[in-house]
């Protein structure tokens, strides 16, 4: 399904009346490009901030204006709210789109932005605050009558936390209250280790989030991660835009996301999607958001958390619905009402997103770095590549190792998988090792083909991550190419006089 051009045209006709004519993207990489694409398609001016490390990046090249920001580290620059707001002011931005990560779910930033009169393209500060704290979010959802997993919250009574955690029972999961993205999470299967694991999680939480508070909850064995995209206009209207299945994860981070989920039948789909919409509606949610659930092997599901931003994996939803989620975010931020009824949202086909990471799956998914000497993204029907890299650039350890997202859409899941294999095969990145070969092995695995995966799938099947032995034929090709491209070797061969070369290894 292609993006709804009619909707784009209608909105474009109105943007002259919007309260902002330019949007500053407070992010980098592929998401900055993604946001700028819609901003510019609407005829708005797209501005981006960038750290020197991103000077030649596609977002900077694409933006109508770019403002350099500085920091002790490149990441620190993108986390520096003051500098970014100053950049927005100096560039005359009327709105700020935070992307994902960085300041996207930072209440103080949201408040500071709105205090200057610039629109924050996202939820209200209160909604960020509510959903940003796992404990508060959980309590809110539970009170609203939606399912949550058994848990123990440290803040309730710090003195009895360990004891209450023990009561939740093994297996359990320790999470930093302020956390997200899998950082600092620890599974405890042996309660003897509970106290030491709590201490470790606390120190990581302290370091990552400046907040050592924790909570524990029942760990659902072999769970699926299913999330639901929602859209709210902040005036009470909320629709869901179907689910995404994000169960293929490594180190609690998503690698492959798809929609529709192969785990759900129509009844379950309706139930989980309406639950999500209900949760968002309970807080009169504004912006695109995602309600995440843990989905057990028996079909039970619990609220996990709500992300009050655009998700990395939003494109699969766009691909099967034709919606432009960034467009909808902009409309809501501009004060428009959601024009959709739930029944207007329809899906068709199957879409899968692959996160192309600079990492080496065979070495425990350790990040890799290197120059982007050649970058030839796959092309073809049903193939979308949202990339934040450019040929001639450099992959460094400065940022998250996600380089690009390959989104492949087909008429059904098998069709999408077949297209994905071709697209992954044809995606060329030379200079820095990526996980594309691993992704091909993953989608060839019978369990993936059957849609039978869970969040621990890759840990349980480490052979998928291991480099398969090279065939002699491939090795021969590699050695031949390398030899022919290496000057000292070629020089030796070329310096042999023609006659002697023609005699080859003759001996008398």
């Amino acid at each position, binding site marked *: 399904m292609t993006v709804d051009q009619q909707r784009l045209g209608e909105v474009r006709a109105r943007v002259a009346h919007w309260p902002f004519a330019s949007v500053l993207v407070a992010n980098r990489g592929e998401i900055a490009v993604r946001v700028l694409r819609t901003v510019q398609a609407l005829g708005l001016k797209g501005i981006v901030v960038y750290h020197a490390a991103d000077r030649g990046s596609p977002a900077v090249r694409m933006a109508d204006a770019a403002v350099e920001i500085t920091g002790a580290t490149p990441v620190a620059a993108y986390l520096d709210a003051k500098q970014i707001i100053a950049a927005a002011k100096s560039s005359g931005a009327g709105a700020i789109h935070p992307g994902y990560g960085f300041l996207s779910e930072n209440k103080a930033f949201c408040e500071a932005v709105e205090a200057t009169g610039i629109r924050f393209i996202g939820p209200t500060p209160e909604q960020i605050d509510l959903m940003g704290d796992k404990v508060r979010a959980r309590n809110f959802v539970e009170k609203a009558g939606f399912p949550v997993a058994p848990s123990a919250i440290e803040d309730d009574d710090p003195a009895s936390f360990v004891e209450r955690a023990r009561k939740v029972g093994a297996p359990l999961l320790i999470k930093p209250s302020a956390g997200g993205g*899998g950082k600092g999470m620890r599974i405890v299967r042996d309660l003897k280790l509970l106290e030491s694991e709590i201490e470790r999680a606390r120190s990581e939480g302290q370091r990552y989030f400046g907040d050592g508070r924790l909570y524990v909850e029942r760990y659902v064995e072999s769970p699926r991660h299913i999330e639901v995209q929602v859209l709210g206009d902040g005036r009470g209207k909320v629709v869901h835009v179907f689910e995404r299945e994000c169960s293929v994860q490594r180190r609690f981070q998503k690698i492959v996301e798809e929609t529709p989920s192969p785990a759900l039948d129509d009844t379950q789909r309706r139930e989980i999607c309406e639950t999500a919409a209900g949760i968002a509606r309970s807080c009169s949610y504004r912006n695109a958001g995602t309600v995440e659930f843990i989905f057990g092997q028996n079909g039970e599901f619990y609220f996990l958390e709500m992300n009050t931003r655009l998700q990395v994996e939003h494109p699969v939803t766009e691909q099967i619905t034709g919606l432009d989620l960034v467009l909808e975010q902009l409309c809501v931020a501009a004060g428009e009402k959601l024009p959709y009824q739930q029944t207007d949202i329809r899906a068709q086909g199957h879409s899968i997103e692959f996160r192309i990471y600079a990492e080496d799956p065979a070495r425990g998914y350790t990040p890799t770095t290197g120059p982007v000497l050649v970058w030839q993204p796959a092309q073809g029907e049903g193939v979308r590549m949202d990339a934040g890299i450019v040929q001639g650039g450099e992959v460094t*350890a400065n940022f998250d190792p996600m380089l690009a997202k390959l989104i492949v859409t087909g008429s059904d899941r098998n069709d999408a998988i077949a297209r994905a294999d071709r697209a992954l095969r044809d995606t060329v990145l*030379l200079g820095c090792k990526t996980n594309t070969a691993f992704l091909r092995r993953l989608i060839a695995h019978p369990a993936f083909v059957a849609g039978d995966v869970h969040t621990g799938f890759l840990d349980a099947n480490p052979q998928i991550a291991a480099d398969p032995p090279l065939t002699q034929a491939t090795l021969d090709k*590699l050695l031949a190419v390398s*030899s022919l*491209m290496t000057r000292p070797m070629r020089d030796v061969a070329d310096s042999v006089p023609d006659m002697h070369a023609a005699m080859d290894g003759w001996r008398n």
Partner: protein
Amino acid sequence: MHHAFKLEENEINVELSRARDGYRVHIGERVLPADLRTGADGRAWLTIDGTHHEIVVAARGDDVFVHVDGAAYQLRYQHPLDRLAASLHGAAEDSVRAPMPGSIVAVHIKTGESVTKGQVLLVMESMKMETTVTAPRDGVIQAVQYDKGQTFDRDALLLSFEPEVKA
């Protein structure tokens, strides 16, 4: 066999020669005719042992990058003089290298400090996890290459020891 490439952890010997009708690659006991034509943007055509393959190639320094059979590979040329010298001088324990890219969280030692085997030298962060780097042997720290907060690539030299004095 003088020339070699490192592919992952393996060092593979290979030789290149030229015959009447083109190049020959010597792999073990086998000798294969090979030809490489490079075009724009890294696209290249490899002919090996009579079969043709469309591939993508790039090179930087001693590294050769090849996209072939649907996957990308990196091979690092090992110059015979370096390779043969290293195989015997081998003072690997005089240097501590980064097992993965990351950044320095804490440095616990100073240049000139004596350390004992197993002592924590520095703490690095990579993949959202902290890893401690410990001393591979007793010795004196000769140089520390990074300060807190700095980032480094895989195999970067993190710190070096004074060479061991042989009794």
